């Protein structure tokens, strides 16, 4: 798609389009979607420890999902893919959310110990629940919007541990199959929001590399609609 239009001549793109690709749970779905959109991802599928995989017209840059908004906002990556959970937690990062890719579906939930009323009890008798989470801003917004007072405790590792040994009354976390919760004697109490993978773009790249960004958006839309 190289339509020459007035005004784009000056905005000569600098090198290949840089795509921020999330490592971890979203990686295989992302590579499949990119493959289906006609981008060669074989290099990124191997055992290579490299972080950057240059290709024809596009370059794949792999990183933690939670770093994607940071790189894309700054324009270090032109576009990227990450979970809605990450975008909600970092809602102050200014990136354009262009497409719901549909895969990586999971739920952000409030969970507590099975058969244990500590959540309700703390709320009723102490006026405040203690909630452990990796998503402090999502959790704060949820409880504020539902009119409840909480102490949000940010943890970095396995959140499930917190209610089991008395750090918190419950947790706010992302659940895909529910197996981790189950194995730790926890259960879902409330569903907060459903999350899927999203395609995001840097503001300036969206304007100045519009042909490439639009084409990739369209192809990803077709690839993930199936």
């Amino acid at each position: 798609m190289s339509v020459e239009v007035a005004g784009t001549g000056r905005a000569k793109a600098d090198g290949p389009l840089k795509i921020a690709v999330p490592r971890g749970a979203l990686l295989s779905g992302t590579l499949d979607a990119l493959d289906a959109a006609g981008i060669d991802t074989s290099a990124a599928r191997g055992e290579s420890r490299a972080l950057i995989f240059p290709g024809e017209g596009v370059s794949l840059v792999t990183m933690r999902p939670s770093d994607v908004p940071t790189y894309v906002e700054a324009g270090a990556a032109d576009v990227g893919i990450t979970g809605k959970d990450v975008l909600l937690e970092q809602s102050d990062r200014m990136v354009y959310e262009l497409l719901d890719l549909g895969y990586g579906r999971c739920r952000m939930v409030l969970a507590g110990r099975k058969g244990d009323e500590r959540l309700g009890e703390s709320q009723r008798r102490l006026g405040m629940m203690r909630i452990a989470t990796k998503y402090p801003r999502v959790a704060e917004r949820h409880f504020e919007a539902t009119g409840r007072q909480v102490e949000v405790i940010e943890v970095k590792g396995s959140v499930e541990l917190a209610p089991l040994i008395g750090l918190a009354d419950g947790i706010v976390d992302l659940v895909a199959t529910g197996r981790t919760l189950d194995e730790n004697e926890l259960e879902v109490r409330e569903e907060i929001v459903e999350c899927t993978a999203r395609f995001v773009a840097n503001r300036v790249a969206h304007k100045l590399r519009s042909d490439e960004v639009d084409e990739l958006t369209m192809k990803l839309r077709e690839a993930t609609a199936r």
Partner: protein
Amino acid sequence: MIHPIPPGTRDVLPDEMRELRRLHLALVEVFEGRGYGQVSTPAIEYDEVLARGDGRTAASAYRFFDERGDLLALRSDMTVPIARLAATRYADAEPPLRLCYLANAYRAVRPQRGQMREFAQAGIELIGAAAPGGTAEVIEVLTAALDAAGLDRAVIGLGDADLYRQLLAELGVEGEARDSILERLATHDLVGLEAELMEVEGMSEEQCATCVALSQLRGGREVLEEARGLGGAAVERATARIGETYEALEARGVADRVRIDLGLLRDLGYYSGAILEVYDPALGHVLGGGGRYDRLLERFGLDLPAAGFALYLERVHIAQHEEESRRAEQ
């Protein structure tokens, strides 16, 4: 001893200051050379006066009381103070008024390079010159300023602030739904936009798709044709306005710097008609922006159309630096 300064502020040392001063001088010379006289206004104003200019986004993050108990505020941009200045000092002057500034403004943003809470803006205000001629003059000065800064790859996005307000009115969307759709458009959250639109009662799938497709149209003149193809009186009016401005730009020979962008929506409440944003391929952040605010001056009792732009000085400086290292690499 290390003595801290507040987050989002910074000291500027001689090497950087020297470069910034060169940039200051180059920009002000462009403005003055085109008849825009430089003005200065106080960094602190009465909160009530600033709020008069921008009620919706109600403004300053920094407010405090003076010794008389009056509520003061640090300005968040220069457009509102200059509207106040024009209405106060030039009430009887023969329009148009041409004014420029280089001044600090204050916003409670998340500090990062090129985005400080205290930041310098360089810009112009053209008061009393209507669209499309006034808009074209402002854009021409902007291109000259970008050239003077050495940013010959920079591009100006041109959109229309009234497009979606009028389109949504035409579709009968109002109140909260309208505000939240405009908010989605401003942040360019297309997934959320589609969801919001689907929730509006009586909105057909086709109308929904039109709104989303419109916000994606950007490019040269042909974009206006594509937009007209999507239909509606609001689209017709907006594309006519942009078309007139574009013709005026062609007449001035600066249309090749401009990309029409129907997805452009700035979050400042006072814009009407043309809106502008400035980008450079070397930088991931917007270099500046502006547009028309034909109804801002009347809030201060001076009923004149107006337009202007502001460049974020530090970002322009960063873009200069990035372009320089890019050229060195080649």
